[in-house]
């Protein structure tokens, strides 16, 4: 494994919340490495600290202690504005509840992150790029639809297009299928798969659902603020292949 292919490296990350006088340790020394081009599932039960870890990975939160290198850069030291810039340029986010702007067209939703980019993108180019992105997620026919006129799966695809508009090397998906039925879940997860394999985008998927986690090449389990074990890509490969056979039904594979 080459050093330059290391995208994310966490070293002994701790996060403690202070609720009044009580200290609640959520992460108790997490260390992990994620390489460029990996498809990682971050799995854990509710309250295991996976959301906190995800927030720290996504530069939305700062660890209480520990070091975090993103593309070889220690991001713990960055200021709030620098982290905002990093999120804008290097990270895409997909949320469980889509978080689209209501009463704004799909196109406007996808264009939105461009407005905060460091380099000013002209309106015309922004429109072009957003259209391109929406075409890629298969919504070429629905550019001017508002979220309320789209199905859940379509909304999530708009959210994916929005996450990809700045061409980030890494995509964070926080329970992306939590609000979707199994069929659309399947479509969305497949889309992640494609992005990972065809475009080489690193995908970090947070979920509590083992069926969803199975799409990933590698599984990172977290329980009580510490990593339980890491599942290598090759281990999951077989699962993936067996899943493909049952793709149409989207039935779960019992581990």
């Amino acid at each position, binding site marked *: 494994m080459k050093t330059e292919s290391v995208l994310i490296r966490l070293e002994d990350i701790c996060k403690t919340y202070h609720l009044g006088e009580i200290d609640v340790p959520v992460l108790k020394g997490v260390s992990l490495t994620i390489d460029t081009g990996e498809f990682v599932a971050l799995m854990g039960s509710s309250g295991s600290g996976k959301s906190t870890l995800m927030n720290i990975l996504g530069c939305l939160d700062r660890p209480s202690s520990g070091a975090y290198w993103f593309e070889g850069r220690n991001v713990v030291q960055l200021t709030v504005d620098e982290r905002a810039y990093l999120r804008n340029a290097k990270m895409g986010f997909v949320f469980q509840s889509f978080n689209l*702007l209501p*009463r704004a067209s799909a196109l406007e939703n996808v264009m939105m*992150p461009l*407005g905060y980019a460091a380099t000013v993108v002209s309106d015309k180019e922004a429109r072009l790029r957003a259209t391109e992105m929406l075409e890629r997620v298969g919504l070429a026919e629905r550019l001017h639809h508002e979220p309320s006129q789209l199905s859940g799966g379509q909304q999530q695809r708009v959210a994916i297009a929005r996450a990809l508009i700045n061409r980030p090397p890494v995509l964070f998906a926080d329970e992306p299928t939590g609000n979707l039925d199994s069929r659309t879940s399947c479509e969305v997860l497949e889309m992640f798969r494609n992005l990972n394999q065809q475009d080489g985008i690193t995908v970090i998927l947070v979920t509590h659902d083992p069926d969803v986690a199975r799409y990933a090449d590698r599984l990172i389990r977290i329980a009580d603020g510490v990593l339980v074990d890491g599942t290598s890509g090759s281990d999951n490969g077989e699962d993936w292949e067996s899943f493909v056979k049952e793709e149409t039904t989207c039935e779960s594979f019992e581990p």
Partner: protein
Amino acid sequence: MRIIRTLKTALQALMRNPMRALLTTLGIVIGVGAVIAMMEIGKGSSAAIQKSIASMGANTILVLPGTAASGGVTFGSGTVMTLTPMDGEALQNECPSVRSVAPIVRARSQVVYGNRNWVPSSIIGTTSDYLDVREWTELAEGEAFSDRDVLNANKVCLIGQTIVRELFEGASPIGKELRIKNVSFRVIGVLSEKGANMMGMDQDDIVLAPWTSIKFRVTGSPVVTAVQSTATESSSTSTMNRLYPGSSFKFYPERSAAQEANQPLPIRFANVDQLFLAAVSTEEISNAIDQVTQVLRSRHRIREGEPDDFNIRNMTEMTKTLSSTASLMTNLLLFVALISLVVGGVGIMNIMLVSVTERTREIGLRMAVGARSRDILRQFLIEAVVLCVAGGVIGILLGRGGSYIVQLVLKWPIGYSPEAILASVLVSVGVGVIFGYYPAWRASRLDPIEALRYE
């Protein structure tokens, strides 16, 4: 570029809920509309009030000849005859702050018509500009005498309502001849009623005639006789004076031979008792006084450091009343404006706070995709300012429309007030910034994680 995009984002955000945006901005619309309408109506009424006070003579300036002094004894105003009708013409031509100038020659005499007689409180010889100076150009009947009448010393006169009542018992006096000191004058016009002045003197008890007629035909010499009145013969005027052919008056002050040698003055044909001036406006009075002083000093060849040979009076009391009325009105309106705009601003702040709470998730999302807190601050601030400015613009249109309707329907005077419009725009932007800042600041302080999780 970035600002334009933010502006676009703000507009889109507002258009997502147009009804609420409209209702929010209503406070500013009504506030600004009321301010504009009131400013315009107020300005109109203020102008009307000022005009009516001005018609009482607030804009007038009186130039009196200086006083002679001998051995420490001053003889009172008018004891030296230094003002000429030409001075009046020069003032009219050379002083931009002076609207019009009328020379005044006074007489006091019995006026006789038929078997009735009356002593008017003032018999004034002047030009037709006198009516303009006193803002009295509207005649009840007939017409004013012309400059030609003045040049020819025609025996025509205008009379006030009191004279009509006393001599003609209310009958139309036009074309009738009345006699002033046995000189017969034809009445060509009747002045409109003006009533008593501030000191309680009847202003309608007046006879106006060309100053040449009064001076050369009636008095023969200035009414306020000079102390040193050793008369010099003047053939040109004595022929005009039918009543006292022997006596005459001085054209200009007697001067010693040494004075003549020192200061050769151009020939002055006659002097007048006073010059009566009107400034173009109340504010211009002090400028007018300066200009008059300058012109008269240069015309009278008064050296630097020497005292003026004339006195200038103005209606300070009335002018003060006038300006205090105007400023009172302005301050009152400003106060009302302030209150209504503050109320409107609080409305904006209220809705913006609701909007920030409602859009917490949106704010969280924007932060997650890379918006810095100042981007969020700017977005919400611009939303508030856009609301206020839109409200301001609608308010301006509404206010203008309202005052126009008031003018049309109620026939109230309206003064177009561009400064009110400018002030409204500035104030509505200011209100937007001030009352939009707190909600915007709250939005920018949100924690993206909390905001994304907000239900």
